[in-house]
């Protein structure tokens, strides 16, 4: 490969995203691979900021019992209080400590974001790989389904599904969010899979008798890791926002403590009009920061898969 051409190598026709194809061969163990990916991401400035923020949120969520001064659900305080020394963020209309709610709330938002993102990505990868690798009727059918789900407005569908489901829990939210967000990733993965399908290393693997699953999982998938990762982070970002929206509309589980429910109660209790702007500002900012962290990390993933986007 010429390393001295002043112009980047020509793009594979049909590829939406340029993939740096690694040597086809045995993949390094998952832990080492993960470590290497982390290090590469860390070298990208935007991604490293994202990783730091995400790391902080994870720490807060994991060590919530140690960080939060009080129980998030205990209604032992004077309601509608502004920030004070006992209640750093003030109290809700039910007399709960907002700061502790914020700390524990990180768990739900993180959980939903990652779980829904992972689920949506899993579905997207499965459908995308199958559709991309097997042209013909299966591909046409799956593509049509994907396009159909894509054009149906996601958020309204989510609201309606959540409204219909009488029993609400965090997991219904995860399911509803995952169900409506897999289509974007599926389309991207399908297009990349169908491009890779015609590459020589795949053809030679098929000719040497590798079974379908081996070809898909050992040859094609490893070359799409950055695409899958990018898909995951996009889905996670959308999931965090969607969860917040659902909670805000009261479509979540009002008994769980998440950043979205804090906003819901704030809206119900007109916190802005009573001057308790912290109840609106804090959870919203937290949601925004978590979403930003995923987006920033995604910048790094983008740069991994498309050398033209790399920072100098």
């Amino acid at each position, binding site marked *: 490969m010429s390393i001295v051409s002043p*112009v*980047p190598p020509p793009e594979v026709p049909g590829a*939406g995203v*340029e993939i740096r194809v690694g040597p086809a061969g045995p993949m390094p163990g998952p832990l080492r691979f993960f470590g290497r990916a982390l290090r590469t991401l860390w070298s990208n400035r*935007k991604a490293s900021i994202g990783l730091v923020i995400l790391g902080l949120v994870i720490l807060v969520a994991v060590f919530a019992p140690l960080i939060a001064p009080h129980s998030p659900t205990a209604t032992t305080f004077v309601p509608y209080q502004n920030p004070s020394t006992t209640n750093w963020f003030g109290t809700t209309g039910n007399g709960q400590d907002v700061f502790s709610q914020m700390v524990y709330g990180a768990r739900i938002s993180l959980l939903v974001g990652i779980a829904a993102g992972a689920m949506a990505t899993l579905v997207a990868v499965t459908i995308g790989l199958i559709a991309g690798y097997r042209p013909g009727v299966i591909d046409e059918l799956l593509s*049509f389904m994907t*396009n*159909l789900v*894509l*054009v*149906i*407005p*996601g*958020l*309204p*569908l*989510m*609201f*309606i599904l*959540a*409204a*219909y*489901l*009488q*029993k609400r829990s965090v997991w219904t939210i995860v399911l509803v969010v995952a169900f409506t967000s897999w289509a974007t990733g599926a389309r991207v993965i399908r297009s990349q899979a169908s491009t890779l399908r015609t590459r020589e290393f795949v053809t030679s693997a098929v000719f040497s008798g590798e079974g379908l699953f081996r070809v898909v999982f050992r040859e094609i998938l490893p070359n799409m890791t950055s695409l899958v990762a990018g898909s995951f982070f996009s889905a996670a970002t959308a999931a965090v*926002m969607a969860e*917040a*929206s659902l909670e*805000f*509309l*009261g*479509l979540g589980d009002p008994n769980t403590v998440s950043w979205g429910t804090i*906003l819901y109660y704030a*809206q119900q209790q007109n916190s*802005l*009009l009573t001057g308790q*702007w912290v109840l*609106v*500002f804090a959870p*919203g900012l937290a*949601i*925004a*920061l978590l*979403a*930003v962290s995923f*987006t*920033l990390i995604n910048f790094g993933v*983008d740069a991994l898969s*498309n050398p*033209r*986007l790399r*920072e*100098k």
Partner: protein
Amino acid sequence: MRYVARKVVLFLITLWAAITLNFILPRLMPGSPVDAALAKLASSGQPITNAERRAVEIQLGVPHTSLITQYWDYWTSIVHLNFGTSYSFPSETVAQTIGKAAPWTLALVGVTTILAFIIGTLLGVYAGWRRGKTADTSVTLGATFFAAFPPFWLGLLLLYVFAFTYGWFPIKGGYNPGETPNLSLSFLSSAAYHSIIPALTLAITSLSGWVFGMRNNMINTLGEDYVTFAEANGLRTRTVALLYAARNALLPNVTAFGLSLGAVVGGSVLVEGVFSYPGLGNLLYIAVVNHDFPLMQALFLVITVAMLVAIFIVDLLYVRLDPRVRQ
């Protein structure tokens, strides 16, 4: 015109599929939406005629009737725009309720989306062209920052700062309370005044998507040989940036525009809800909060069909932009 023919067929099939999905959805849900709806209607205080009851059943599920019959009746109702009665607005049909709200959303969301697309795309072109320099970094950072704001949160913040604290803008509603919608200048101007913050909220949150997409497209396009060749031939910088790079980088964005309408509509639900702006999004908000199934069904149908039509129009527009599909 094979491309156009294919798009028409796709549009019709997707339209059919979406409408059918709308038919299936309430019949699949646990509990019985139709019973709940009828019960709520009965307790709303308004007398329910048999015709209205029937209309609601057709939308949500007619007991003891075959699916085929229901499906046929469903299509008949839709074509006649008969969606039943909602219990949030029991004095009028759902069709009427939606009819009143639609213009507001069209005005607010329609105008804002197009503006956000244009401004976002231009900013993306600028950032991509000046990649790596301060202009690019500031645009990118700004867009990242604003992209992360949940729309309703941004709406609440803007509301708090500009409407509540400073009183520069009204706190809620689409027009001055006490007025009835008409086409007089005073009404239109108060309507415009009331729509500024909601529009700003929607615009800021949707802008960033366009900026990023266009910036990435620009960066990819700038690496193409025809851009290099154009520069080698000494074409003016502006020509290369706009007619060679941006014009090509635009294409994927246009395709994405149609698909993004779903997100815009979703965002409008939240924004209109926060501002009590009398549009379709607000209606959906009310419907969802009240578990108003007939209204939800009809709204979902209207929104989906509107989106499909918009996407179809964008697809047709694409033919004008890309000569490669004009086979």
